[in-house]
């Protein structure tokens, strides 16, 4: 069902946890749907120097969170905002079709955290104009 990569990131997730003094925090999902992702970002000079996550959800939700955090760690905001759910899924060697929404959730959680950072710092981030953190990824 799941690739080895998915299972690895599920069993040994990278970057689990919280960042006390995070510069941006984003949470997406809904416990009613069975998945919530919360992403914490530490940003210095436009670079994501640290990222942590907490996720309530299935195996692929946890693996997607883990992979997504890995993919943006050390990257610039510009790069992070371009992270697509497809990239997350590909980095995991693919997700089953019914689980693609988990990768969407990961993409959105990062965008939500970036949006939070933008708001707190009163900046705009290119690529987040149309982003709505409350949109339900299950509808995708």
């Amino acid at each position, binding site marked *: 069902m799941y690739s080895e990569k998915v299972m690895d990131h599920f*069993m040994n*997730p990278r970057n689990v946890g919280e960042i006390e003094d995070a510069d941006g925090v984003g949470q997406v999902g809904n416990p009613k*749907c*069975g998945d919530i992702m919360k992403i914490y970002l530490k940003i210095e000079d436009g670079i994501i120097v640290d990222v942590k996550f*907490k996720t*309530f*959800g*299935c195996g692929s939700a946890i693996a997607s969170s883990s992979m997504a955090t890995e993919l943006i760690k050390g990257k610039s905001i510009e790069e992070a905002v371009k992270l697509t759910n497809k990239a997350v899924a590909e980095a995991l060697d693919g997700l089953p079709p019914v689980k693609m929404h988990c990768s969407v959730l990961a993409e959105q959680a990062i965008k939500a955290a970036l949006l939070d950072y933008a708001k707190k710092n009163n900046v705009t981030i290119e690529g987040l104009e149309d982003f709505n953190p409350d949109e339900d990824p299950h509808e995708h």
Partner: protein
Amino acid sequence: MERYVYMDYAATTPVKKEVLEEMMPYFTEKYGNPSSIYRIGRESRAAIDEARERVAKIIEAKPKEIYFTSGGSESDNWAIKGVAFANRDKGNHIITSKIEHHAVLHACEYLEKHGFEVTYLDVDEYGIVDLEQLKNAITDKTILITIMFANNEIGTIQPIQEIGKIAREKGVYFHTDAVQAIGNVEIDVNKLNIDLLSMSAHKFYGPKGVGVLYIREGVKIHPYIHGGAQEKNRRAGTENVAGIVGLAKALELAYENLEEHNKKLVYLRDKLIKEVTNKIDYVRVNGHPEKRLPGNVNFSIEFVEGEALLLSLDMMGIAASSGSACTSGSLDPSHVLLAIGLPHEIAHGSLRFTLGDFNTEEDVDYVVESLVKIVERLREMSPLYENVKEGK
């Protein structure tokens, strides 16, 4: 993987050695078509007739009331659609419950598209149907009541005798999906006023792909698979002789040891419930405290998601199941857990262990020990648990 603990006996069971042994000759030497008149054909016919008698005896039916099918789903579809279309002149109303297996629910939904009306009875927090609501639902158009004997997810056993009595008094046919109950509960179709009953061999240590529909003599029902004259012209298709022989043997074995089997399962079940609820907080046990299948345990473990639990258990060599939406590929968690009133977020964290003949006390210890670790790990990752700890 060192240890393998299978605790998903409600999903399916291995075929028992003695069962497979009885089946074997029918694949190779005794391969005759039961409809053929020569020796090896007659031997197959005799094997089926004997199987029919063996099955009938267990549920106190007549051999001619036993029809072999390809499994529980076919039996349910046949019973419901076959009775519906055969009795359309009498009425178009069917009563069932909200916690039936999909084979029943989807058959009913299909009938709704074909001019039938279906009442889906509520259940209480334990999963028991409301007998008053049942009585009130019956109209002079009601032709069938179909209520499962025992639920596959939460293990709740329905008041079948009372339902049968109500149905009989009102002159309405009563079908029960006994797929989960058979092999765990004594069933006498006469005492319980059952008119039709479904079973599936792979749930009681028989092979997959073979089942039974019991049809009380005199019940008006259409055939469902048309064709040859097999099964007294009611279910066409060359008989799965090996499967039928296996089904009968498995059923016999189940009822030979029923008391012992149940005593052991209840002991292991209660131990599992006790230890898990002692060692893990924010856990609830779903289903009825007493009126439940001997091997069924259904937990809701808050703040974690069911599939993540299953995957983690699988990594530790433990097989279990969940009513979480994520395991079914649908968006909603189990209709059964919702029907007993669980909120979605709690239903997502459901975890079912179903114990069976090959489980031991060590298995239970291992599962408890593993589960404690897994829940701890997953909750550490869970933003919901964090809120709770912080008192939010």
